[in-house]
């Protein structure tokens, strides 16, 4: 289990790169890479030679997240101005522009079947679900207010939703918030189930294990990565090793490893059997905002504030 650096693109964007995802391969082309940056552009890369395929403009303020449909045909990008732009990957034709004012947009993810797009709604303390056929808002999963709090109470603002993740079976959604709590929802009933506690600082990234719909990984500013049993409400293990905020986490398709990107400028590879960091990549010179495993495995990509993109081989 190790990472081997393959290629890095310096100055891939004009500004900090904040988001990255793999666009799955289609019949006509292999998998692509999608990156979003503070420079208000979204770029599409061919991962074998890291050649720029296309630059999408049209966002104002920085692009904070990108998500790809499991089919690989469409993708979504979201920026600080709270718009989500859905577009055709190959033609860059706009399909829809989603807005659910006044909620902001942070992390997004398509469900495994590709019928729904879940969007972390920031200060609205909710996750918005969009139908991918009609692009209508179909549900708002709100985190219930703690009881006994007046609606005007300031602490309610702490449930600021930053991250969202679908379970691999598509039945659960977990969302992480600024105060460190993770909320789990039943999607079919659109119902809040429970909180997962353990973090007390912002949870910026969440991912379910691709092989086990119960296992959830969370990355938090408290420098820890937690592994939860999302159904049993229990913290399986906490993994420490980063020197600063953990900004991004992704699980390998085989479920045996996770990778994290941190403000401490490293990308770490964690062995889930050992529950320990196996490797620490130090090629970035600034905070690493995004890490992502290729859905088919074998490749990992990371993006950073240093404007670069790095590709690794995972074996």
């Amino acid at each position: 289990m190790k990472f081997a650096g393959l290629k890095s693109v310096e100055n891939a964007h004009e500004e900090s790169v904040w988001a990255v995802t793999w666009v799955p391969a289609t019949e006509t082309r292999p998998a692509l890479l999608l990156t979003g940056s503070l420079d208000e552009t979204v770029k599409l890369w061919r991962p074998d030679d890291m050649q720029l395929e296309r630059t999408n403009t049209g966002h104002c303020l920085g692009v904070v997240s990108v998500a790809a449909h499991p089919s690989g045909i469409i993708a979504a990008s979201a920026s600080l101005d709270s718009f989500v732009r859905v577009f055709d990957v190959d033609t860059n034709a706009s399909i829809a522009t989603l807005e659910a004012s006044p909620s902001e947009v942070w992390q997004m993810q398509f469900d495994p079947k590709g019928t729904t797009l879940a969007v972390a709604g920031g200060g609205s303390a909710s996750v918005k679900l969009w139908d991918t056929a009609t692009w209508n808002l179909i549900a708002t999963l709100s985190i219930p207010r703690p009881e006994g709090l007046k609606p005007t109470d300031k602490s309610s603002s702490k449930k600021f939703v930053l991250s969202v993740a679908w379970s691999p079976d598509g039945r659960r959604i977990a969302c992480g918030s600024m105060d460190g709590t993770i909320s789990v929802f039943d999607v079919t009933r659109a119902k809040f189930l429970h909180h997962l506690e353990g973090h007390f600082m912002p949870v910026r990234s969440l991912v379910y294990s691709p092989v086990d719909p119960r296992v959830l990984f969370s990355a938090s500013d408290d420098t820890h990565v937690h592994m939860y049993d999302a159904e049993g409400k229990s913290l399986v293990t906490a993994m420490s090793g980063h020197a600063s905020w953990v900004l991004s986490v992704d699980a390998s398709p085989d479920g045996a490893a996770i990778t994290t990107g941190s403000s401490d400028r490293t990308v770490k590879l964690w062995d889930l059997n050992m529950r320990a960091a196996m490797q620490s990549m130090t090629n970035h010179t600034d905070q690493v905002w995004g890490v992502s495993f290729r859905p088919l495995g074998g490749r990992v990509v990371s993006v950073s504030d240093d404007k670069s993109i790095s590709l690794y081989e995972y074996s």
Partner: protein
Amino acid sequence: MTFVKRALQVHPSCPGAIRLGIGLCRYKLGQLGKARQAFQRALQLDPENVEALVALAVMDLQANEAAGIRKGMEKMQRAFEIYPYCAMALNYLANHFFFTGQHFLVEQLTETALAVTNHGPTKSHSYYNLARSYHSKGDYEKAGLYYMASVKEINKPHEFIFPYYGFFVVSIQDSYNVSFVICSTASCPPPPPPQIITWVSGTGLGQVQLKLGDFRSALTNFEKVLEIYPDNCETLKALGHIYVQLGQIEKAQELLRKAAKIDPRDAQVAFIDLGELLISSDTGAALDAFKTARTLLKKAGEEVPIEVLNNIGVIHFEKGEFEHFVLCVFFWVMEFVYLSLTPDSFDVLVVQSAHQSFKDALGDGIWLTLLDSKTKTYVIDASASMLQFKDMQLFHRFENDGNHVELPWNKVTVLFNLARLLEQIHDTVAASVLYRLILFKVDYVDAYLRLAAIAKARNNLQLSIELVNEALKVNGKYPNALSMLGDLELKNDDWVKAKETFRAASDATDGKDSYATLSLLNIHLICLVGFGKGNWNYFAALRNEKRAPKLEATHLEKAKELYTRDDKSQSGSGSGKAKPGLDFAMATQVIVQHTSNLYAANGAGVVLAEKGQFDVSKDLFTQVQEAASGSVFVQMPDVWINLAHVYFAQGNFALAMKMYQNCLRKFYYNTDAQILLYLARTHYEAEQWQDCKKSLLRAIHLAPSNYTLRFDAGVAMQKFSASTLQKTRRTADEVRSTVAELENAVRVFSHLSAASNLHLHGFDEKKINTHVEYCKHLLDAAKIHREAAEREEQQNRQRQEAARQAALAEEARRKAEEQKKYLEQWRSSTPASKRRERSENDDDEVGHSEKRRRKGGKRRKKDKSSRSHYETEYAEADMMDYREEPEDEDASMNYREPIGQMNDQDDDVEENANDRLAAAGLEDSDVDDEMAPSITAARRRQALSESDDDEPFERQLRDNTDELQDSDGELRENDHKSNGGAALDDD
């Protein structure tokens, strides 16, 4: 091995001796399980086989579980009963009795052992046991002798490593230079205060003499030796040590340096020794020594390991003194080790070896199991994870599983240190397990505090407070705990409580604990800020102190009082408030002396800056910064920020930005939204709107729920747009981007306004709405501007085209004219030549007058000159023609222009062309500037009549500037609020 095996196959029933052989082989190969099997088999065959018994016992002992030790000792005793002269068994037994404190038995046993064996290492072990026994009994003379004897017996120092019960012996290259690390077991009764570890180094004898305190005689002895062997490293080193003890550090250093020259291999050791010895008296010099050692090591190209890790693991300290400082010093050394080596990235090697050294020092035990995989099978219930760090279930369960949890009290310190190291390398999870293990057995205050600190770092304040309270239960007056509690209460916005806590902490140390005092002071400042919030900012709050309401006045009084108290205890570094000038001088004096004074000096700088004495405070901050960066123990990002603030206040934006950026990068991994806000503000003041916006967007990305940042971003965009629109000259592109920016701003503000409905932030809705309105107006205006600009652009394009055409036409005409002129000239020249011919003819004729001739000559001259003129003109025209083809139609049109004298006409043409170009707004900017505003003004008026609002635009513009100032104020206010925060953080 294979031979033995084969033998075994041939004779399966052969005597135990062979089994024993196999066992030994396996043991050496590290296959402990198989070795054990072999030994057991041997014992079965021959229950009287002493060797097997001993070997098994040794293995049991090395497994180092309490049960194992007991079993091992039983076996040893059995072996002893069977054969009382087995040296190995004797040694182990002696070892055991040493730990149980039966020194008499130790001596007897080892003496017997010595009598019966000739084996070097065994003998050495025996001597060592004896030496230890005497050592702990305080009989240094005998101990010294036996240490010497032991050292003499060792050929390969590596064989002599006994990782038992915290007694670990590190051998360093030279067999004479075996250093014994010994826990001073004698005096500390359990439960132990932070335990002091003494590193007895160098040759036993010299050390013992040193121990005896007989420095003078030791000195003379060593000096005698040195006379005979001036190049004897050992002696040089020993003398160095003695000088250190006598306080003559310079001389010591000189000697050690000399030793280093003679034997560079040995030098690091010498310097490390020096450092060790200095730690108790002079930490600064100690660090220098360590640094020298480090460079020497590097020069020698050697690995860093054991020596440095010894520094980490062990500190020489006079027992009983400064107990609670021991740990501080320890941490310093530890931090030094990896900070100074590679400031940016940890020296993995060092950390690892340090890690290993602690583990060695600990020996085997439950902690190893805990650190390895076993713990991870225990799942902690997430709902109970609130108590994650208090959770002792782990150990109970562990015990229930049949594992014996035992923690020999003399290992607590080492374990604690290991945990501390783990914490430092960010392995917090493992560290917390170890701390809990300590707490499971002992009420160790610092472990509670560390756990509390971990919880605090993870923002789990509730748990952290609980843990500190636990610590306070153990020792209610422990100032560190009190200070921490105060801190936590502050974080929880519980100022009143915090104040009391800090006061208690301060009282507990009779006001000597500067941290508590400073914190107390800070609380008053916080209170000031808190009440100052009513005012427009922090600075104002401080400046208006005298006029401030009663409450503030009381707080201020107290703050002053505290400052003066601080003053007394710390040479007045903090009393800037009373006499800034005087204080400044004093503060600078004391800055370098003590770290806490750095903070005080920093505080003084803040006060000075608030008083507006930027130059003085800048000097102060710079000095603090230098001092702080020179010291590896002190991490003071605040002083960087303060310095940047001062630069900012002085209008030195470029430097301020640099400072902020460096600070962010150096201390915060670029994760501090607050500093980004400062940075953005600096950009804002420097009118770098785009940079300002980018910084703010970054800050938003880091702190998404901070709506203030969004507001500020909105303001920045608004300001950007307004400033572009106010510019006299702008391109259509600029205006377009302005419109886009304004749209963003409107979006941001309307978002904020919508969010304020949800009570997500504390903004005044009205204020946001005014911003929205204003931005919308601005946007409308901007759109018109954009249209105007676009139209203008279009027109410009048309005009340009026209101008170009005109220019072309001009060319054509000119060419035509040239041609015409040429023709004319040609025509005129023809008669001249005719005339000349004629005159020539006249010349020929005798009857022609001279006058006439002269005339003709004149004329000819003139003709010549004009011709040349025409020729050049023509050439020019030709050159131009070369570029553009004349258009006949235009040329014919232009022909109508009056043509007077040749030259004049030429000028006219040029002027005309210029005018035209100017009219087209191509070349002359003044003209353009005059025109454009009139156009836009007209359009503005038009736009206003169109817009719903009846107010004249000019008024809006004025409103807008007011509004902008307002928003500036807002930004500044935010800034200063946070500023206050930073100032609080300062100490």
